[in-house]
Every structure is written in C-alpha cells, then in structure tokens.
C-alpha cells in the first residue's frame, strides 16, 4: 500500500472512503489501516472529509444546482473520459 498516483497514502484513503460510505464490514480494518499508516489526527480529518462530502452531495443533488461557470468549461474534457457525464445526476446539470 502507499501512493495512488501523486497522493501519499491514496490507496488507504480510498479504501477508507469506500468502506465509510458503504458502512461495510471492512470499515474497522480500513480505519485501522489509515490510523497505523498516517496517524490518529489524520484519520479524524479523513473522516471529516467523508462527512463533509456526504453532506455536500445531497445539497447539490437535492437542489439541482448547475455547475459553476468556472468549473464547467475546464471540466468538460475529463468529465467525459471519467464517465461523470453519465451519472444520473448529470442530466441537464452541466451547462448554463
């Protein structure tokens, strides 16, 4: 385990995020892995980011907001490559 791309401890953080959102049986192990690899403060802060975006996605999708103009144009190319435009929530939400 270690880097994912340029992100230090990226793999551990992704597994932790996945397990947290799913509330899966693997969560205790994923939590312990982050704690041992990074430290308890880092674990707490990672959990806070999970919580923050569990909140923010529901605000965005609950109100149907469009992408901000400063993000819409620069993101067009990679949205397609990454399949983001195929998300159910993408319908009618991409451009002004």
């Amino acid at each position, binding site marked *: 385990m270690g880097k994912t791309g340029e992100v230090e401890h990226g793999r551990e953080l992704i597994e932790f995020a996945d397990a947290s959102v799913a509330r899966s049986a693997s969560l205790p192990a994923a939590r312990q892995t982050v704690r041992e690899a990074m430290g308890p403060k880092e674990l707490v802060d990672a959990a806070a980011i999970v919580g923050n975006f569990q909140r923010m996605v529901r605000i965005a999708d609950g*109100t149907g907001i469009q992408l901000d103009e400063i993000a819409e144009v620069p993101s067009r190319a990679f949205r397609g490559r990454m399949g*983001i435009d195929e998300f159910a929530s993408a319908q009618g939400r991409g451009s002004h």
Partner: protein
Amino acid sequence: MTGSIFGDCPYPIREDLETATQRAWEFLGKPGNWWSGAERVDLVAETRAARDCEFCAERRDALSPYAVSGEHGSATSLPSVVIEAVHRITTDAARLSEQAIQEFSADGLDDGRYVEIVSVVSTVLGIDSFCDALGLAWLPLPEAQPGEPSKYRPAEARPDVGWVPMIPSGENGSNEADIFAATFVPNVFRAMSLVPDAVRNLRRLSAYYVQSVGDTSLRTSLDRPQIELIAARVSALNECFY
C-alpha cells in the same frame, strides 16, 4: 474525551470540528423558517430511519426510482410526502429531478419547506457519516426547542441555477450580507439560500473541510491532494455530478 459531544472517542478531535458539530446539532433542534423544533427533530429521526429502509434499498437498485412501489420504513408520523422527500435525499439523491420536486410541491411540500428538509438531512448525514467513519455512536437526537418558525423568505430569492428559488449571485439584500459577502459564491453555497439560516449552518460546518477554496491555511492534517482525493471519491460513490 471527557465532555465531548462525541462521547468516549478514542481519537483526538479538533476543537473547531467539535464546536462546529455542537452548534450544528443544536441548530437542528431549533425552530427553522418553516418547521418547528419538534418537526426538525422528527426530520433527523426520519433521516436515520431512511439509512436502513428496505424500500429505499430496493428502489436504489431499480433502474428507475419510479419502477418500484412500496412503503418506507419510517420512524415518525411526518406526512408521507415529507417522508418520501427525506428518504429520497438520504438514499437516492443522485436521481432526484425537477419533476420529483414538482411532484412534492403538488403533494403539498412547498419549496421553502423542501429546502429546509435538504438542510436538515444533509447536516445529519454529514455528522452521522463522520461518526460512522470513526466507529462512533451517533449523537443523541437534538433537543427540540420551543418557538414558532420564522416564515422568513428572502425577497431576492427567485428561480436561478437550480430546481428551487435561490438568491442570485451578487443580489443578496442586507439581511444576507453576512453570508454572501464575497464576490464569487459557489452555487453549492447559494443552493439553500431560500432558507438563509441553512447556509449559515453550512458555513459553520466548514471545519469539516477547509475554509474556502482559496484558503491555504488548512486546518486539517491532510494535504490538499489527500483532501480532494477523498472528496472526489465520496462524490463519485454518490454519483454526484456537481
């Protein structure tokens, strides 16, 4: 940690994070713009019930949310349209649509009440998810405070870049000068501006993230790429386009 809102937590939680959570949790029990304190506490309870609702799980797996019918496993006696809205936002927000919100409205759930539901549900999900991630018990239900809803609706709110009225960028009145002081306000911070206190509550919870997109004085122990990796992953798991 003696006296912590999170109870007997084995991890060190930043003071600003704990304070923000305490204030947000108390906010949930206070009368809002359209819901009483007791009703808002019911919305909290219903959000939690939604997370284990079998009908929601069945519907989430269906090709369309309209492909299945059934009854929600609910925890309150809130009106059925409210229960439906709470459960949809909690478990299947990515497939909400303008049509769904119009259907809620036709069933008596007007836009102000709906936006306040979005505020309560999203606040609860954020805090409960934080607790889940750390293996902590959920906070006890907030204490319902007496008083009547304010029935305040900003005069500037109108249809804009979403499915609900909001204060357009740069057009807030003096009542909302405290929350829209910047030249650029991302849509996600204007999304609930039909209920301005919902935006104030959201800003208080910035301790869970970083203070602003351009803020380099990060309060967290993670570096920026790590923060954004988690953010992007959680967003992708929820299929959130924004």
